[in-house]
């Protein structure tokens, strides 16, 4: 039974087609893993019975030789996606008990393609965080933890942990500054943040509107491609959705990368970069070179401003996006004698510390007297950061960097919690990409000496997920991480 959960989505699809097992059996296999893996606190809401019903419907189609792209495939959904009739909380006290009467476009597309939903996955509250420790449901635990509990990463910690512990065939995540890529790296799984505008944001609880993107977290590159095929696509209900065709991302896998130019940004070789990570970075470049790719040094001169830029823009947009959480029309209201008191009580009670911190920073940088110096300036620098990539992409086709400067750290690591800058530095390799709206993928390439997975990030041109998948597939094959676990 547990063999079923080892299968990738691609393999499971094949097996379902060949009637080696039923869709319901596949759900049951994952359900058993969910029981085993409860200690990872990956799921904040389990919907196994629903998944079985969905699987039954899938089976009917499969029996007829029909079925969608993900027919009968059990997935976990990050609890930031509004799922109709299923509790959606953004892992916040504010929304505990909120059941949306509407479905996000991305999760609707997954359902339309035949997927079944095993449950909602843990995340940092309102997607704000890099360790999944700010969740109102407690932290998601990295399945690679041995004696000490390690963080699963964030904000999509639950998603990455669930995939790593075989508690779902694949999961959805969202990425604003690295929230798909970093937890994927920490948990030794694969995840892609597509180009901004590839996937609809409709129905995804908004954190930072100009940065948020949905994407898959799965066992390998092929599974990510399969899932992205279902998730991506123009949506008229999202005005920032891109009117571009969705190619079959799977067909780029195995493409020859001879002559592909791999950019290595010199500014990312930061002082004190962990030696093991640096070594894997070099090794990854060598592997691609051995396949005929060309390694090119590039420069992204404004990289050092990326964190500051991100931590001005994202909180600014978040401060406005979270203004609707006032306890009046939905969510957990704490009454007061006046309207303002009710707002203050509800929001003080409902929001965690990190969320409050970011709302305050965001409000400050938009306020009179500071708007020009902070927000406008940050948007200008953002343009420069994006220009860096545009210029670099004249010399290369994809860019290779580590995903994170460290491996998964311990839950409750005070040095991280007490030093927000240290926590925020986790995003150093990922935020520039988000600011520029570019697609990027993280895949595991090996273990460090503590036996924890390390990930490499491949960044592509806007809407050029094709080259991303090509390069990533090649690197995945050569790195042979699966063999390492």
């Amino acid at each position, binding site marked *: 039974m547990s063999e079923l959960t080892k299968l990738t989505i691609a393999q499971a699809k094949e097996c379902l087609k060949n009637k080696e097992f039923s869709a319901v059996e596949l759900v049951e296999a994952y359900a058993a893993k969910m029981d085993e893996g409860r200690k990872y606190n990956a799921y904040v809401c389990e919907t196994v019975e629903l998944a079985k019903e969905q699987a039954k419907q899938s089976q009917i189609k499969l029996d007829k030789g029909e079925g969608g792209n993900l027919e009968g495939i059990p997935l976990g959904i990050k609890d930031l996606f509004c799922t109709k009739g299923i509790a959606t909380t953004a892992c916040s006290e504010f929304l505990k008990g909120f059941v949306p009467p509407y479905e996000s476009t991305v999760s609707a597309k997954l359902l339309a393609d035949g997927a079944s939903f095993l449950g909602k996955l843990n995340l940092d509250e309102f997607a704000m965080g890099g360790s999944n420790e700010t969740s109102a449901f407690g932290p998601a635990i990295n399945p690679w933890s041995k004696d000490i509990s390690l963080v699963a990463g964030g904000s999509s910690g639950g998603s990455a942990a669930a995939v790593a512990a075989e508690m779902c065939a694949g999961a959805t995540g969202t990425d604003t500054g690295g929230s798909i890529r970093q937890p994927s790296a920490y948990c030794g799984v694969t995840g892609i943040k597509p180009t901004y505008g590839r996937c609809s944001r409709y129905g995804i609880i908004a954190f930072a509107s100009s940065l948020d993107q949905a994407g898959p977290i799965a066992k390998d590159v092929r599974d990510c491609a399969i899932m992205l095929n279902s998730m991506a696509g123009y949506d008229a209900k999202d005005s*920032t959705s891109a009117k571009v065709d969705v190619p079959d991302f799977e067909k780029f896998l195995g493409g020859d990368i001879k002559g592909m130019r791999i950019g290595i940004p010199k500014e990312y070789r930061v002082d004190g970069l962990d030696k093991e990570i640096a070594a894997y970075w070099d090794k990854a470049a060598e592997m691609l070179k051995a396949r005929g790719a060309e390694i090119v040094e590039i420069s992204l001169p404004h990289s050092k401003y990326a964190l500051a830029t991100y931590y001005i823009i994202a909180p600014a*947009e978040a401060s406005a996006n979270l203004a609707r959480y006032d306890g*009046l*029309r939905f969510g957990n209201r704490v009454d007061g004698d006046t309207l303002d008191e009710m707002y203050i009580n509800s929001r003080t009670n409902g929001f965690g510390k990190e969320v409050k911190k970011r709302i305050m920073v965001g409000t400050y940088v938009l306020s009179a007297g500071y708007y020009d110096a902070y927000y406008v300036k940050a948007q200008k620098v953002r343009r420069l950061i994006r220009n860096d990539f545009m210029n670099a992409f004249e010399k290369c086709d994809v860019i290779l960097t580590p995903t994170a400067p460290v491996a998964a750290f311990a839950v409750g690591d005070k040095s991280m919690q007490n030093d927000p800058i240290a926590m925020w530095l986790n995003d150093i390799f990922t935020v520039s990409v988000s600011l520029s709206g570019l697609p990027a993928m993280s895949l595991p390439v090996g273990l460090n000496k503590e036996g924890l997975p390390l990930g490499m990030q491949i960044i592509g041109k806007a809407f050029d997920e094709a080259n991303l998948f090509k390069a990533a597939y090649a690197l995945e094959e050569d790195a042979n991480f699966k063999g390492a676990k």
Partner: protein
Amino acid sequence: MSGMILKGNTGDWEIICGLEIHCQIISKSKIFSGASTHYGADINENVSFVDAGMPGMLPVLNEECVRQAIKTGLGLNAKINKRSVFSRKNYFYADLPQGYQITQFEYPLVGEGAVKIDLEDGSSKEIGIERIHIEQDTGKSIHDISPTKTFLDFNRAGVGLMEIVTKPDFRSPDEAGAFLRKLRTIVRYLGTCDGNMDEGSMRCDASVSIRPVGSSELRPRAEIKNVNSVKFVMQAIEFEANRQMQIYESGGEIEQQTRLFDQTTGETRFMRSKEFAHDYRYFPEPDLLPLDLSDEFIAEIKSGLVELPDAKKERFVQDMGLTPYDATVLSEDRETAEWFEKAAKGHDAKKVANWMMGDFFAMLNEKKITLAESPISPENLGALVELITSDVINGKTAKDVFAIMAETGDNPEKIVEEKGLKQVTDTGAIEKIIDEVIASNPANVEAYKGGKTNLMGWFVGQVMKASQGKANPGVVNKILQQKLL
């Protein structure tokens, strides 16, 4: 010069006033959601998830609202900006579900324009338009259902508004009144707003300051918010100007402030000062793209524009020979203007105008019906005038025919035919009647010949009576003159 001069103890003061008018856009759906704008729906019946500010919801721009605003801009002779940008205006209030209003701040859809107003003394003045932008309306707070609770109706939340900002060109309450009436006429002509201040679909804020006559400084102003009738706007401006004068003359200062108008007392009341003015933290709306309009789009709207009141009035005077007064009255309302044009087509326009402004409007008033409900069609009124012009009937008979038309709706030719009301122009027949009258009234004939020439009217009357009013009075006069020589 139409400005109002306030005579103070220390000297003369003039009023500087600008208006900000919010006009609800006529459209089927709201500006950023598909919910209906239909007035009079049940409470909270026309509220979409987007309007309610639910988690994950996103705005989508309604093209019709953009068209309506462009039409209005063209109607106010204003520049249409090809690029405009939406912004978030952030503040907390129960009637604002998102915690921010989507509006346009730095880059509005419409730029500078001008409107000519006609004043009572016959002069006209040009009022400058600063800008027009489009934005969301808020919901409605209902405070008077309960002593301890406020109830919210979100039907209005998200309805499109055009905010029209004038330059501070008003120098008297009358000018402001004339402008508001003109604006109302224009938007009703265009069909972009119904201009009903009492229903709240057009709301006016007046900014008032004063300065010594001859000075060119601009002193701090008081903004009087949400005044809901033209009369009250005029009252508010006058009261506020006098209030400020009294303060200045007693050595005080005016601080920039917001005030409310109390309809029962006719006074303005302090609401809040500049210090406590909200910091709205405006920033560009990241959920919407900048609005880029093509020349073709604007040209298409321009070519489809109805003829505006000023142009119509001009044409009524120049081409149709109406007096400016009649032209103003008949062009005030598009429905009336078009009715008039139909009636006047092919007939004596001036005569038609006289009939409309006289007997016709009187008839509508008496029956308490609207133009649309008129039993007399415009074509029939025109036909009636034609019968007079071509001497088929005389003026007196026409009034009788009109009265019958008002009851039956029949066309005048039919009535004249059926009732044998054709004017008698046959000189022979008239001569015969005249001879009889002269023969029966020798005393008056003597008196007339003896010098009492005002008896002519009496003679004419007798002939008309004897002919049952059908004789052509002109012919009667002529023959009588000859016979009584």
